[in-house]
């Protein structure tokens, strides 16, 4: 690894557009082994770009998600500080089995296919209300601020059992977390306020349980109150901007390919094509192992790139084409292995409900700016749109 540092590439790389991962990924997939790359922190890590190798990394028990291990990669300076299990109890995406499993197993029934189907009318109501509000305002909107961001925030607050009267507060604070113009101080303050609010909510629910996730987790008795507020915060953060970005990028892609509006394959193909969480699955090797013909030593950071995997020709023909008729279900947009997105069926439900309602209620929906002028999140950990001006 020290023999040839000239082959170390800088990372992350910029995407050329909405539907394309960075151009370099195609070359990386062709190279034998993995790719050495340097993060903004100066740390050197392995990039994993082939579909098969990404799945191998994410299912290998010698590979850890726990950032307290030496050598764990960090994109810090770009994330505004990510919590870890030692700073926030219940932040179980950063725990390995078996510690991880207590949290996941308790939460699984809340996000099963059946449960999300039961939630669909609530999701549709939230979507309908946001569309009503957009239509009432006039004949144009920012589909990100007016629709894509509030919908998942309102869905999560309803799921957690946040009372109606507190939804505006809850939504305003969650917006601060993802607003790029917010300062680190504002974001930290919003995080603290949300945690304080969630702690209070958990206390109320422990006395007066309702028909909601927090009440059921309290009844299950597998988590402390501190863990429960960390879990609630994680659900909120993990399900907010990710979903919003998928909704808004999906609307854009469908506006450019209207012939596919209403097709059953749309959601899965959009998830694959945009792969918004390309930089999210950071890992470190806890033992020596070999992936894709590359020797990885214990303590070396690994970054499996889901957008690279989802645009691997070996797994998807014509990978840059938007083709909802393809079978795209083996994409890894939600990750793979034990940490694969817990809320994936909720995201699918929100995306489907959003497209269905938007295009039927507003048949004249169109872009209010040229595609090349749209502000994509080139600099974010999550890919998406800062705003999406539309009119009708």
């Amino acid at each position: 690894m020290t023999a040839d540092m000239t082959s170390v590439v800088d990372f992350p790389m910029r995407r050329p557009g909405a539907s394309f991962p960075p151009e370099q990924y195609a070359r990386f997939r062709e190279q034998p082994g993995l790719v050495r790359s340097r993060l903004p922190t100066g740390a050197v890590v392995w990039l994993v770009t082939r579909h098969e190798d990404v799945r191998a990394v994410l299912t290998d028990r010698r590979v850890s998600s726990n950032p307290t291990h030496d050598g764990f990669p960090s994109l810090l300076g770009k994330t505004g500080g990510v919590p870890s299990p030692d700073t926030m109890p219940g932040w179980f995406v950063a725990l390995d089995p078996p510690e991880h499993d207590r949290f996941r197993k308790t939460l699984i029934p809340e996000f099963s296919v059946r449960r999300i189907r039961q939630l669909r009318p609530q999701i549709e109501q939230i979507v309908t209300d946001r569309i009503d509000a957009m239509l009432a305002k006039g004949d144009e909107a920012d589909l990100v601020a007016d629709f894509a961001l509030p919908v998942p925030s309102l869905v999560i607050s309803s799921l957690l059992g946040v009372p109606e009267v507190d939804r505006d507060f809850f939504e305003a604070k969650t917006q601060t977390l993802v607003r790029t113009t917010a300062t680190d101080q504002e974001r930290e303050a919003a995080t603290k306020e949300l945690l304080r609010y969630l702690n209070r909510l958990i206390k109320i629910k422990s006395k007066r349980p309702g028909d909601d996730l927090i009440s059921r987790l309290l009844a299950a008795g597998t988590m402390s109150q501190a863990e429960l507020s960390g879990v609630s915060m994680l659900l909120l953060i993990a399900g907010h901007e990710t979903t919003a970005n998928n909704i808004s990028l999906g609307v854009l892609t469908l506006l450019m390919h209207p012939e596919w509006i209403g097709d059953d394959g749309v959601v899965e193909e959009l998830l694959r094509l945009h792969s918004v969480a390309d930089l999210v699955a950071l890992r470190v090797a806890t033992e020596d192992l070999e992936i894709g013909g590359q020797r990885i030593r214990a303590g070396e950071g690994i970054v499996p790139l889901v957008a690279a995997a989802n645009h691997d020709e070996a797994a998807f023909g014509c990978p840059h084409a938007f083709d909802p008729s393809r079978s795209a279900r083996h994409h890894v947009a939600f990750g793979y292995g034990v940490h694969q997105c817990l809320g994936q069926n909720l995201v699918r439900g929100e995306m489907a409900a959003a497209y269905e309602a938007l295009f039927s209620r507003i048949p004249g929906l169109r872009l209010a700016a040229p595609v090349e002028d749209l502000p994509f999140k080139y600099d974010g950990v999550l890919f998406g749109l800062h705003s999406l001006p539309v009119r009708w």
Partner: protein
Amino acid sequence: MEINVDRDRCVGAGQCVLSAPDVFDQDDEGLVTVLDPAPAAELAEDVGQAEKICPAQAISVQKG
């Protein structure tokens, strides 16, 4: 075709239910259950997909 699932490995993603809803379901704990352990041959493709995409690699299918 014979299907076996490992409920200890299952992480409840529900991908098998989406791939082959007549063969797989999630119980009240959200874990995989098999509705039809020996499905008809025409479901082989859907079942194969469920096996392939299961994030916990908890499904095994024996062809026969």
